[in-house]
């Protein structure tokens, strides 16, 4: 490598470090402010305590919103994985010229600004007199994550050998049996990854949720409301805990992916 190349390499490394630091700054501040308080812009170093975390269980409102978010997340996962699998399988096996158009539509809610997806569903629900609720949020989330779930499952389906299913039929399996005993186990991993990803995205999804939620609150909505009042240590504490949860989920996904890739190498 030439000197100039070395020089640019170091600059890029430093830039990477700075950017990682910048991205994590809000996160660290959140964790920090869950332990400490500020007074008139200065940190009160005496205010350290674990209390926000221990008292969290008693904060009914926060817990309720968390429960709602988890409910929405789980139902979203179920719906999006089922529908996403159906579409992925369809796309993979179909020779119809329409499938490209179908794929484009599936991707629309994800590619367009979330405000549009949220608004269109909001208006639609009003016109058909469907009251807003947690379930309308589920519908919104499902449509939103469908594109990702679809793509993940489709990628996996396309790497499977066609002879796999063919041999199942050859040995006498019905369509359902082939699906249940052969196809499903072989795409298990991608279903799990897609599901975990869908859950993680749904947990934090704010923009669409703001439009579609009724009187219940989910976690991001709770934060949105609290934000007006100002954040207490407790809110920061709960955010930190959720952050740990989502980081764990992301690391889990990464772990699954790397382990499955190692298997393929053998």
């Amino acid at each position, binding site marked *: *490598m030439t000197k100039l190349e070395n020089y640019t390499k170091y600059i890029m490394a430093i830039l990477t470090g700075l950017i990682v630091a910048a991205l994590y700054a809000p996160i660290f501040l959140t964790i920090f402010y869950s332990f400490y308080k500020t007074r008139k812009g200065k940190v009160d170093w005496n205010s350290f305590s674990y209390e926000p975390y221990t008292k969290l269980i008693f904060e009914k409102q926060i817990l309720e919103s968390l429960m709602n978010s988890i409910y929405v997340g789980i139902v979203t996962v179920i719906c999006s994985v089922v529908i996403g699998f159906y579409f992925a399988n*369809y796309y993979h096996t179909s020779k119809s010229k329409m499938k490209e158009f179908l794929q484009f539509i599936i991707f629309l*809610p994800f*590619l*367009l*600004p979330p*405000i*549009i997806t949220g608004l269109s569903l909001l208006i*639609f629900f009003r016109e058909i007199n469907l009251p807003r609720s947690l379930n309308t949020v589920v519908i919104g989330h499902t449509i939103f994550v469908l594109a990702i779930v679809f793509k993940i499952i489709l990628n996996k389906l396309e790497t499977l050998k066609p002879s796999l299913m063919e041999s199942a039929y050859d040995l006498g399996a019905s369509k359902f049996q082939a699906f249940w005993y052969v196809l499903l186990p072989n795409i298990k991993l991608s279903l799990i990854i897609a599901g975990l990803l869908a859950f993680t995205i749904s947990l*934090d999804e704010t923009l669409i949720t703001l439009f579609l939620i009724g009187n219940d609150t989910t976690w991001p909505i709770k934060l949105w409301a609290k934000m007006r009042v100002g954040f207490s240590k407790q809110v920061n504490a709960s955010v930190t805990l959720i952050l740990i949860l989502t980081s764990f989920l992301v690391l889990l996904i990464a772990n699954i992916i790397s382990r499955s890739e190692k298997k393929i190498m053998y």
Partner: protein
Amino acid sequence: MREVLNYFNTSVWTIISFILVISLILIPLASFLSYSFFTVDGTDIIHEFSLFNYKEFFIGEIYINTFVRTIFLALTVMFICILLGYPVAYFLARYASRYKYAILLMLIIPLFMSYIIKIYMMRSILGYSGLINKILKMLGLIDKPLEFFLWNQNAVIITLVVILLPLIIIPTFTSLEKIPRNIIEASFDLGCKPFQAFKYVIFPIGLPGLIVGSIFVFILALGDFVTPQLVGGTSGFTYGKIIYSNFGMAFNWPFGAALASILLIVSVIIILLTNYLTNRSKS
């Protein structure tokens, strides 16, 4: 019936897929678009076709102005993300070999952190007594804290960059990483100095990923309405905020829908254009 199906090379399943997708995605979009042609009377919505809303958009200067301003804002965010994100993606793809996935993971995790909290915390970073001012003071670069960073358009830009950077780094990294090592070696072998190898081989092949990431960042920045509410103050507001306010207290859903429709059309055009351009460069 069977002949019709065969002609279009479709099946019952295709029809079912269509119905599902149309009812979940297309009909809401259609009703949303149709709303933009309605008007409001007090708290009632008049379901009659009218171009009133669109006229308002073009006549009332503020709407077009904000829209154009927001486009420039989104472009600014996009370019800053490219400027900062490309070197990071390049560094990870080319030089970081052992650590690249670990660092990539570190860049992905903040994406899953609560959106609202991230923005809210930017206040503590950008504000009068915030982190940046404290650091600048510590380094001796300033005497008094700057008001440059918060409660204005700059804050919106900076915050959006912090939120959206990983979204440009990931696809850029992916397409740069895919470049086989021996293609780079071949370019050296044929006499390229390092910068020439970048200019003629690495950059062109890695371009599609960069474009995907850039467009994604642009569209998300264009439609964002939370950031200006939290850090924008009075001077930093976006088109998205105006749309949102029409669904809040102003309760003029049709008008909001019209404003959003314009956003929709612009977004769709950009997506299709990008799609067309990247497909053309591939063949």
